[in-house]
């Protein structure tokens, strides 16, 4: 221990002669650990965020969409325009598939909305059943929900999202007020709790909810819905239930073997896949950058250690004369080189930590600390120092006291 401290002090004294080089070499390791920590923390954040988003969509949720969903980019609409799903389909799922807990068919279309002189050109208006809130995790902040009776009697009532409410009412309480949706006056019976952006980044608080039957009869004048939300009884039931729903709907829609489905059962994991892919790419690039930084750092440390060993030939000779063995010399210089790299690595880890906090804040991701990422970063910095120290410390053992004495 005493020896380590003394050796460290001597090493620092000697490093003082090569300040710039030491700083540059440390910088390599710094960036290496920096990127590893940032990438590690961010991919963990994203995984958590994805999990939260899926849970936010609804517990054990399966989404059935009419038509074929094609996806070209992160913002391609999840839902096609075709409307060949029926209320009958929804009822059949609810009544014949026991793994189903709740079913919420829904239609939607954008309509202009007006209150007094304020006109909002296109607000998403959703026709929903009473189960919708439960299935999709939508909660009401004030007022009352849409009831069976509202739906059966096609009442012209609406639940309003936070954003829409602010646009139309500002600070005023919207409950009880009447707004004009398209050309139908509807009374607002409740305000939705804040929900934030969905997986695709759309503001889920900028929309209106009205009873499904009101929507179908008074607004779109059709019997078909765009989407059926199905809640499975458990997480394990999701995958088998998806298959059962597909089979059931193919029969109901009279789709023959060789024909394609005219509906899509969305895999929620797929919905977030694009984002994960992008993040995956960033991770890979980050790790490549980290590897390159470590390499540069290690090369820098290698060159410094060669200089240091040269500068300290006499010291090494004297240490050998007073009885240090070759392995003591090797150990000493390996410790010195890993000390250089680990100090750079520590600073890099701290900076990477702060950076990932900042990024998580900007992207509105949950903050996670990847313990594994920190560990890998630390190990990588120590390792690059040790590897860089091997050759110079071997060189140091070839310095012989007799040669030192003869040199002067």
């Amino acid at each position, binding site marked *: 221990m005493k020896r380590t401290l003394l050796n460290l002090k001597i090493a620092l004294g000697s490093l003082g002669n090569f300040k710039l080089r030491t700083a540059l070499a440390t910088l390599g390791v710094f960036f290496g650990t920096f990127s590893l920590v940032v990438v590690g923390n961010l991919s963990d954040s994203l995984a958590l965020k994805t999990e939260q988003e899926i849970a936010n969509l609804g517990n054990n949720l399966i989404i059935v969409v009419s038509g074929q969903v094609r996806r070209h980019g992160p913002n391609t609409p999840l839902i096609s325009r075709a409307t060949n799903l029926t209320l009958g389909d929804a009822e059949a799922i609810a009544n014949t598939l026991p793994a189903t807990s709740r079913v919420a068919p829904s239609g939607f279309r954008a309509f202009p909305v007006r209150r007094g002189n304020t006109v909002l050109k296109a607000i998403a208006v959703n026709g929903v059943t009473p189960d919708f809130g439960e299935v999709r995790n939508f909660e009401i902040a004030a007022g009352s929900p849409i009831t069976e009776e509202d739906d059966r009697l096609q009442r012209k009532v609406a639940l309003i999202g936070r954003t829409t409410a602010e646009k139309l009412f500002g600070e005023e309480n919207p409950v009880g007020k009447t707004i004009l949706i398209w050309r139908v006056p509807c009374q607002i019976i409740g305000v939705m709790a804040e929900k934030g952006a969905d997986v695709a980044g759309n503001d889920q608080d900028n929309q209106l909810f009205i009873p499904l039957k009101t929507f179908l009869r008074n607004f779109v004048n059709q019997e078909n819905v765009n989407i059926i939300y199905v809640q499975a009884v458990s997480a394990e039931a999701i995958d088998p239930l998806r298959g059962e729903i597909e089979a059931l709907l193919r029969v109901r829609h009279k789709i023959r073997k060789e024909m394609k489905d005219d509906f899509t059962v969305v895999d929620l994991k797929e919905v977030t896949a694009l984002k994960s892919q992008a993040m995956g790419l960033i991770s890979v690039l980050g790790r490549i950058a980290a590897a390159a930084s470590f390499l540069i750092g290690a090369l820098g440390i290698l060159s410094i250690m060669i200089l240091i060993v040269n500068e300290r030939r006499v010291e090494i000779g004297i240490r050998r004369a007073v009885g240090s063995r070759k392995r003591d010399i090797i150990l000493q210089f390996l410790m010195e080189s890993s000390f250089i790299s680990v100090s750079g690595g520590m600073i890099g880890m701290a900076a990477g930590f702060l950076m990932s906090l900042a990024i998580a804040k900007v992207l509105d991701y949950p903050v996670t600390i990847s313990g594994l990422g920190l560990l890998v970063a630390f190990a990588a910095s120590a390792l690059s120092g040790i590897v860089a120290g091997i050759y110079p410390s071997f060189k140091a053992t070839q310095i012989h006291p007799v040669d030192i*004495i003869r040199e002067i």
Partner: protein
Amino acid sequence: MTPLCRMEDVRKTFRMGDDAVEVLKGIDLEIVHGEFAAIMGTSGSGKSTLMNLIGCLDVPTSGRYLLAGREVLGLKDDDLSVLRNAHIGFVFQNFYLLPYATVLENVLLPTLYRENAMDGARERAVELLRLIGLEARMRFRPNRLSGGEQQRVAICRALMNDPELLLADEPTGQLDSKTAAEIMNLLAKMNERGKTVIVVTHDPAIAACAKRIIRIKDGVIVDEQAG
């Protein structure tokens, strides 16, 4: 009683490419415990080479060398290190103190490589520095000391592990005659306290301090006399 050092027909040949130069050509030598010997000879006669062999910094090309009854030829590098650490203290012409360590740390250096840690090493080092009158400077870097002071610190370092044998190769080569006399007095004092001391020197005045003078010429011992 076995002698501390015993050399029988020791030869040392250096190879420089294709040339082989025999520097020591059959040395027979015995040094007993408590001796104070001076090795003299002209430049290039092989004094330092002999000193390095005695100190186990190097091994003979042929012959026998027994240090404290133990055969040195054939020992591994690590074993030689352990041997030097425990039995031999070196003093060099150029002092060779570590520039980034304090005076005290320099004195402590040999304890870092001991087989068994030394209890009270620091106290012993301070005590040695007190003996040579440099206790007050123990936190200084060596470059703040004069040459004579540095050499005294180097002697403390050589004494730190309490070796039987103190080897000094031209210890006064860098010093003026007054300081040189002080250093020789210090070595003589150590000899009185029981250390075996061997000094290499050109200077007859220095050699006169020793009790025995070994003259070497062209790699052989030509003359021995009591000082």
